[in-house]
């Protein structure tokens, strides 16, 4: 099953892990959200700067203290979400959740890197790692839309709670 190890750590994942996107902290941001995964201790912090239209995610910063999977997943998020509208961002996050739940979903070419997350499904305990960045994003966006300026805080355990 070294094959499935390569399936988990696909080249794309390792690439994102080694040089994560969105590393640079933002000077200004409109959304800040902290996520963590209590069962393994991973912590992830996410900042988003919104465009003047209050609808486009202009820039994004992801800071992840975690494993290769959570780091890569956060990096993929930073890359794909940048420049997207609120609605698009939420749709992508939901798509990731469906992928990780094991649903058979087509990944559009434009979101190609998400395909790399499919390998995680064979490693049930690692799914929370891959989810971390995305549930943190969802919580941050929700807060923003509700007009709350405060920091969103989420844990992957809460997420599971709602399943």
């Amino acid at each position: 099953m070294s094959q499935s190890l390569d399936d988990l750590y696909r080249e794309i994942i390792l690439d994102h892990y080694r040089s994560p996107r969105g590393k640079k902290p933002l000077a200004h941001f409109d959304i800040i959200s902290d996520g963590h995964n209590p069962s393994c201790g991973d912590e992830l912090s996410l900042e988003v700067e919104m465009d003047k239209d209050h609808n486009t995610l202009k820039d994004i910063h992801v800071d992840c203290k975690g494993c290769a999977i959570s780091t890569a997943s956060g990096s993929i998020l930073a890359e794909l979400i940048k420049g997207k509208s609120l609605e698009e961002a939420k749709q992508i996050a939901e798509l990731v959740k469906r992928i990780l739940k094991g649903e058979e979903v087509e990944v559009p070419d434009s979101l190609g890197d998400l395909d790399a997350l499919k390998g995680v499904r064979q490693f049930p305990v690692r799914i929370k790692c891959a989810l971390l960045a995305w549930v943190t994003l969802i919580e941050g966006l929700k807060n923003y839309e509700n007009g709350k300026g405060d920091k969103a805080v989420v844990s992957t355990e809460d997420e599971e709670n709602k399943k």
Partner: protein
Amino acid sequence: MTSNITRNRTAAASPLSRFDIEKIKADFPILNETVNGNRLVYLDNAATSQKPRVVINAIIEYYRKTNANIHRGLHKLAEDATRAYEATRAHTASFIGGVASEEIIFTRGTTESINLVACTWGEENIHEGDEIVITEMEHHANFIPWFMLAKKKKAVIRRIPITVCGHLDLNNIDEIINPRTKLVAVTHMSNVLGTINPIKELAAKAHARKALFLADGAQAAPHLPVDVKDLDVDFYVFSSHKMLGPTGVGVLYARRELLENMPPFNFGGEMISEVSFDRVTWADIPHKFEAGTPNIADVVAYHAALTYLEEIGMENIHRHEMELTGYAIEKLSRIEGIEIQGPQDVTQRGGAISFTDKDLHPHDISTFLDSKGVAIRAGHHCAQPLMRVLGKIATARASLYIYNNEDDIDILCNALVEMRRYFGL
């Protein structure tokens, strides 16, 4: 497997040959399994141990020949089952230094044993302003029950800190264990750092303050000779599943006077003497604490685990693990990027070896090792407060037992070297 790290001893000179590991390995059917195409190298013994054939067979035998409910039956099976169950109790009593059988209570595991003490003795004896002393290296099982009890009773939790080397820091011990102290609860051996704590010394300090002492022996009873009378502890707790026995069996040893004065834990059948609609009287110890049908088959089979350990000899087991831990620490510390937690001196520690990689998260280490057939654990090891003290979010942990040998360590170390290559480090 060829080793890319020079072996520093030849097999012939190895003191590990004191007992025949190959023969021991052969007693454990699971060690013949392959995982991801490789021979299983099981180094997750602090989580649970594997079971020798004699233990598995004892379960089979029980269900094939004896199975019946115990203590009340007048038919032959029930008498045989009762006798076998009580024989394990007597054996357990002798295993920890020759206490009385009635001083042994069977539970589901260490966790339940500690909860039992907190809910019975603790509930009656801990009051507002009293202090309970624990350490920074406790497993959640020996922290949360006391934390919740203290919260309920408005009592205070005091903790013994650890040094940078992973020992208990006893500098302020006479301030921490003080006249307000009612209980000192300390792990005999840390499941994260491997540290063996000075239980006898600490129990004496507790008793000098008229406090009671509980030792969490979950990691010690499987690996060291334990004599609770010599240690002079009031409560000693451990789990069968970490010492070659079945899951679902734990032990609480407590001194007879304590047990006699403690109220019962659970209520139901077998733990009563007389019941009417207005009045209930309890059975004598140990039955007072064993409500309902216990885990009979597994208690019976635990006997075989104790016998197996005694046949090898707890002294020999300890010596073997000391040597192998030394070998492992030495090899691990030579691997670039790997940092070992806990004491380095093998005379003061057991074989639970936590380590981190300066670049890789423990989860990735564990997943990679698994692909090579090497089972270790990664995470907070149910010791989140300790992780905060160590400044780590998690560690990787390789933990040894009697069936592990230098080959297993070599495979682990080679895999770690390969891992760093795989991740491009």
